[in-house]
């Protein structure tokens, strides 16, 4: 290890340092401090020297326009909860994450870059076509969040890049569905989750978004399936319940682990899907 932990004051200083040093990008630390903990009285040992980013002003902003909400990567979950322009359904999702002390330091950028399929902000962001900005000293690129992940815990982030901003397009939905299945209400990691968003206008489905968390290496969303049901009368959706479940079923490929079993995760995911379809079919505008 030839470089030290570094806490830059600006994004430019961070990118300059990252261009020359291999670092572990470090935000709130709620995942990393646990992952690399060594126990009482000992500082965690990290595989690479940390580059601390939680204090960088450019990463701490929330910008709201008519078209989108742009969130800095180091904005904490609690800051999202107290911001007036964050949609209520997103707040509902965030308020079920971890516990209050963790939400006070955990950041949205950390939840994304940790790249766990059980990251609870991910189904919402992906269902909303969120994009992210990846910056290095010499380059910057904007990619769809759904293209960022390549496998569980793996992303396309390069060694000299930092996730700086998350852009959520503002789409009008009038029906929201979210269920997180965990062992208990607070402080639990997700066994399975489902998010459903829809816009029903004049009795017809104008927008439909469905995303599943923690039941495959990546968040499950399928644009082609969603598209098939646009334009349909929402009270007719129940006729398609079996067909929709049949289409999503092969995409839901959960595993057995310490938190749950593949069989349970699959069953509960399809049950949430049926629940969403039923609610949507009965929905008034």
């Amino acid at each position, binding site marked *: 290890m030839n470089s030290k932990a570094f806490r830059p004051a600006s994004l430019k200083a961070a990118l300059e340092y990252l261009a020359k040093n291999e670092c572990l990008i470090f935000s709130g630390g709620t995942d990393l401090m646990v992952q690399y903990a060594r126990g009482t009285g000992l*500082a965690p040992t990290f595989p690479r020297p940390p580059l*601390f980013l939680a204090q960088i002003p450019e990463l701490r902003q929330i910008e709201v326009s008519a078209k989108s909400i742009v969130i800095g990567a180091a904005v904490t979950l609690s800051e999202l909860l107290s911001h007036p322009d964050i949609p209520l359904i997103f707040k509902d999702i965030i308020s079920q994450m971890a*516990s209050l002390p963790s939400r006070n*330091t955990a950041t949205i950028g950390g939840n994304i870059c940790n790249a766990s399929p059980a990251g609870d902000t991910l189904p919402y962001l992906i269902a909303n076509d969120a994009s992210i900005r990846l910056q290095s000293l010499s380059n910057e690129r904007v990619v769809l969040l759904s293209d960022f992940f390549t496998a569980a815990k793996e992303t396309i982030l390069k060694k000299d890049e930092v996730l700086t901003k998350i852009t959520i397009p503002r789409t009008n939905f009038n029906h929201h569905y979210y269920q997180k299945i965990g062992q208990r209400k607070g402080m639990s990691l997700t066994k399975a989750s489902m998010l459903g968003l829809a816009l029903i206008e004049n009795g017809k489905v104008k927008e439909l978004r469905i995303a599943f968390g923690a039941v495959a290496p990546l968040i499950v969303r399928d644009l082609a399936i969603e598209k098939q049901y646009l334009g349909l009368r929402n009270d007719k959706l129940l006729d398609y319940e079996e067909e929709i479940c049949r289409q999503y079923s092969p995409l839901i490929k959960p595993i057995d682990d310490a938190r749950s079993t593949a069989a349970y995760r699959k069953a509960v995911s399809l049950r949430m899907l049926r629940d969403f379809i039923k609610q949507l079919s009965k929905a008034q505008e």
Partner: protein
Amino acid sequence: MLIDFELNGEEVQVEASGTERLLDILRERFGLTGVKEGCGEGECGACVVLMDEKLVNSCIVPLANVTGHAIITIEGLKKSGKHFESISQAFIEAGAVQCGFCTPGFVMATEALLNENPSPDREKIKEYFSGNLCRCTGYNMIIEAVERASKARLNE
């Protein structure tokens, strides 16, 4: 790196690598042993302190992230002379302390909650305490303690 922050109302400076757990620095360099280590994974809340008036788990906050912030531990709460007595009295009256290991965390969480919301209902209290575990009392007495502390503060 040199790390400056405010600790219980006083400016302090620590020479450290920045990766240390705030918990260890508080207990071992400053002797603030009211901050307890339970799980060491940010789940139990025995180590919670206030950082800029917000509750954080000191076992998973690296010292670098404390730079320029204000930390208050249970010792600082007591020293400030503000709400420590009324919260402590409420915990005694409600029988909310048994082994006492989780108590400093619950007291700090009570302080943070009542600063934010002077008269929280039971649901709000439960939600706020989702990150604090107690293995002795069950939670009813602790919730009652918060209700008592809330009333005491409103009557101050």
